[in-house]
């Protein structure tokens, strides 16, 4: 592991915050190009239908309309390239969800483009729609997805199995068996900046794309495929990105493809920015889920077996569902030592908007169950809920549910101990009990939640777990760095500057991070799976090591002692220039190969795991059913923390998103139609809903292969928070909820059932 000095761990303020507070940071909708068209999308009003004809003649006669694009105009493959390529860029013959793109209008103004979409006449013939997973799994249900994408047969996109030990033996050893059925619904990312992309025809028949996104290399691949261009002729530049949370993992591939199709057809720059309603209704969300969970435990609380069945509602196309499902599968046991495991996980196609990545990526759907089960075991056995977890959490040398023996950087027990201290668990429990004895109208409750998160892409997509960086010593001694993963609000750019400056031994002010541009760095995979900072930092360390070697050599040549290299950095840089020394280096990083057997679901699923324990206290109004979080403590093991303020910011934000998921955020779906109207009816946590007193701490079980010992953090806070909040509400009510959100109507329903 690299030696750490002053900068690593320091709460360095974010340099990018200055542009942002001035209103000068340029997000995609702040950009314009000469001659730029605006794109509006003609979308399917049907959940499942044949497209009989498209007549654009009237729209084309509208003022300011330049072109109408349909599937016939796609020069390359008519797909939104993600994993299975089952989703057309523009519907060809069939539509499979409400909101599916059918045609595009390019016009000189946004308003003209949107208005003209109403004049594109599309004739449909409705087909039978299947809009819930129970119906989709019935024998005889119509197959509503592209059959080639349904590897599980029928409407089952994927079916995955994990078998470790023997669950029958495990349940035979159990003194108690607890069984439950749990459901979660949609969660909308609600990044404050809606989806958007601008495609700009560039020199020599190439296409440049400027967009809000997490995964520029995904966008590059998707646009190249749809336009039929070589990758080298598609250049993708990430614009300042106003939040993503997984929502800008695969969806920008679609948005950029649509913008590029208009730009290609019209031979002019074309911008597509969704308005909020369109964004909420037509882009991916967290997969709704149904999980059946059975747990066996001995009288001392030790878990002997789990048997889990997971069903995710994938929506109409595969997008990322196979990867999301895999994480549900391998996370189903949580951070616990379970000798006998059986998990079956299925992603099921329905005629609804395709679901995709959302912070946690298939894990929150199994965390709500595994933490509910843990509490119910504690209750059955008369054990303290923190204690039953302490008896089961993974320790160094233990094997995970996928039989991965983990030796290093296993800090779950420490997070549990720290969170219990931060929350003053035992004392707070007695205060809660006293409160409830003296209050008839309001009850308080305490919830605790422990989670495990495999950092990176692991056994599902090992070829994506890499990263590149370039580093260039300028003639004045400043250094330009570029990396292949992106800043999207989480703080990657600041952490990278800290790492580069630490590794080079020069002040942060001398290092500049160039904007993300696919022509500048090699394909280093996506900014997802809490891997972005870790992987980019590893690549930067590799580049810095190479540059340092040259710096040392040049310094020697000009008679500057190593010890003086930092002060005389500018002189050394000048000597590079005068002596024609190559000042540019490339860094590369990849994770250790993982072994994983898809038939058994066993193996070393991920290179490393992050952990957390959260404790929430809530107050529930017994008359209205409103639950409010009044206290919160969070302890995380993400290895070494590179920037404490940024990491804490990730945790605080994740707590807010988690409590939203548990308490208020949901979208009803009726016959394929999402019943939601932008942010008016989707209830996001406001400043009044969050625990401003949250206490956040890090136990830092260093990961030797990580940069300065760090591993990932991004997704973990949300994952732990929702279950702590839900279980706190359960504690306050004395009832076990079976679904999210625990909004006032559902809490009242549970309370009246217990009366």
């Amino acid at each position: 592991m690299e030696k750490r000095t002053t900068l690593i761990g320091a709460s360095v303020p974010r340099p990018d915050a200055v542009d942002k507070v001035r209103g000068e940071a340029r997000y995609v909708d702040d950009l314009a190009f000469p001659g730029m068209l605006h794109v509006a999308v003609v979308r399917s009003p049907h959940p499942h239908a044949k497209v009989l004809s498209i007549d654009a003649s009237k729209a084309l006669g509208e003022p300011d309309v330049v072109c109408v694009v349909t599937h016939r105009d796609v020069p390359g493959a008519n797909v939104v390239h993600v994993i299975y390529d089952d989703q057309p860029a523009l519907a060809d013959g069939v539509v499979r969800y409400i909101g599916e793109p059918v045609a595009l209008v390019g016009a000189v103004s946004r308003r003209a483009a949107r208005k003209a979409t109403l004049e594109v006449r599309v004739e449909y013939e409705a087909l039978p729609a299947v809009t819930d997973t129970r119906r989709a799994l019935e024998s005889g249900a119509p197959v509503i997805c592209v059959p080639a994408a349904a590897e599980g047969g029928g409407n089952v996109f994927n079916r995955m199995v994990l078998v470790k030990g023997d669950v029958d033996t495990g349940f035979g050893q159990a003194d108690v068996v607890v069984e439950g059925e749990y459901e979660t619904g949609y969660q909308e990312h609600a990044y404050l900046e809606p989806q958007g992309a601008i495609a700009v025809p560039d020199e020599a028949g190439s296409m440049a794309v400027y967009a809000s996104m997490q995964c520029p290399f995904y966008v590059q691949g998707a646009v190249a495929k749809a336009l039929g261009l070589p990758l080298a002729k598609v250049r993708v530049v990430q614009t300042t990105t106003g939040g993503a949370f997984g929502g800008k993992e695969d969806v920008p591939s679609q948005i950029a493809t649509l913008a590029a199709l208009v730009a290609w057809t019209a031979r002019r720059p074309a911008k597509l920015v969704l308005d909020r309603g369109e964004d909420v209704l037509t882009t991916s969300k967290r997969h709704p889920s149904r999980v059946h969970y059975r747990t066996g435990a001995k009288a001392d609380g030790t878990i002997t077996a789990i048997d889990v069945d997971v069903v995710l509602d994938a929506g109409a196309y595969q997008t990322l569902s196979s990867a999301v499902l895999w994480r549900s599968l391998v996370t189903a046991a949580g951070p616990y030592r379970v000798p006998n495991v059986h998990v079956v996980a299925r992603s099921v196609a329905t005629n609804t908007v395709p679901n995709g990545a959302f912070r946690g990526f298939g894990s929150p759907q199994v965390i709500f169950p595994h933490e509910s089960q843990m509490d119910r075991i504690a209750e059955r056995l008369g054990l303290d809920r923190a204690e039953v977890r302490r008896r089961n959490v993974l320790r160094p040398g233990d094997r995970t549910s996928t039989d991965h023996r983990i030796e290093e950087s296993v800090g779950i027990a420490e997070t549990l101990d720290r969170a219990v201290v931060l929350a003053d668990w035992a004392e707070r429990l007695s205060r809660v009990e006293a409160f409830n004895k003296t209050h008839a109208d309001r009850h308080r409750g305490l919830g605790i939640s422990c989670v495990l998160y495999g950092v990176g892409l692991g056994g599902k997509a090992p070829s994506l777990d890499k990263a590149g960086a370039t580093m260039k010593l300028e003639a004045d001694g400043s250094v330009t760095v570029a990396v292949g993963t992106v800043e999207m609000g989480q703080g990657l750019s600041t952490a990278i500057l800290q790492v580069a400056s630490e590794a080079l031994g020069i002040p942060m002010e001398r290092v500049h991070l160039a904007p993300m541009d696919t022509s500048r760095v090699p394909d280093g995979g996506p900014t997802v799976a809490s891997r972005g900072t870790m992987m980019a930092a590893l690549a930067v360390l590799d580049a810095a090591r190479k540059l340092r070697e040259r710096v040392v050599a040049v310094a020697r040549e000009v008679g500057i002692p190593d010890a003086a290299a930092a002060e005389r950095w500018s002189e050394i840089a000048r000597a590079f220039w005068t002596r024609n020394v190559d000042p540019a280096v490339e860094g590369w990083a990849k994770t250790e190969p993982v072994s994983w057997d898809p038939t058994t679901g066993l193996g070393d699923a991920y290179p490393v795991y992050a952990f957390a324990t959260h404790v929430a206290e809530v107050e529930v109004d017994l008359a209205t059913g409103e639950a409010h979080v009044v206290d919160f403590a969070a302890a995380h093991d993400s290895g070494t923390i590179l920037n404490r303020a940024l990491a804490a910011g990730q945790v605080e934000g994740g707590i807010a998103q988690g409590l939203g998921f548990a308490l208020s955020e949901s979208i009803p779906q009726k016959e394929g139609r999402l019943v939601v109207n932008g942010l008016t009816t989707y209830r996001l946590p406001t400043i009044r809903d969050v625990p401003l007193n949250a206490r956040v701490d890090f136990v830092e079980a260093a990961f030797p292969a990580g940069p300065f010992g760090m591993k990932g953090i991004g997704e973990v806070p949300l994952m732990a928070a929702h279950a702590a909040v839900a279980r706190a509400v359960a504690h306050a009510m004395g009832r076990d909820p079976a679904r999210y959100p625990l909004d006032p109507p559902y809490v009242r329903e549970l309370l009246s059932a217990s009366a």
Partner: protein
Amino acid sequence: MKVRFTVNGHAATVEGDAEMRLLDALRDVLHLTGTKEGCGEGECGACTVLLDGLPVNSCLVLAAQAEGREVLTIEGLADGPRLHPIQQAFVDAGAVQCGFCTPGFVMSTYALLRDHPAPSEEEILTALEGNLCRCTGYVRIVDAVKRAAVQLAETRLGEARARARETA
């Protein structure tokens, strides 16, 4: 239709149709893109500007309604390269992540601290409950507002002392 108003102390004339929102006039015509459109329905507060000193969602105000009035946007706060103390406090407190909501929060804070130089936590929550942030969990935003209040009070005190010295 022509609308004349003052933006950040400068006279502006905007031409557009009757449906043009103040947000469109600022972003599309005057190229003041610091004001953001997060929802277009008055829910998120990312488009907050001050109209005659009062915070409004500029997506819910027609450009015509600004006729003859004064508009202050995020671009009007900094003094050249020097950040306004509220902006500096947002940087220092770590209150900025993706930054899309930030201009709206800064403008709401500006109005708050002008009317309540030493706000209670309740006053802060009331002033900012119309602004949504999806990244930060609001913790550091509240901290930024408190820091800015202290900083502005110190600045005022310094100015008062300077004036006192001049008179003395």
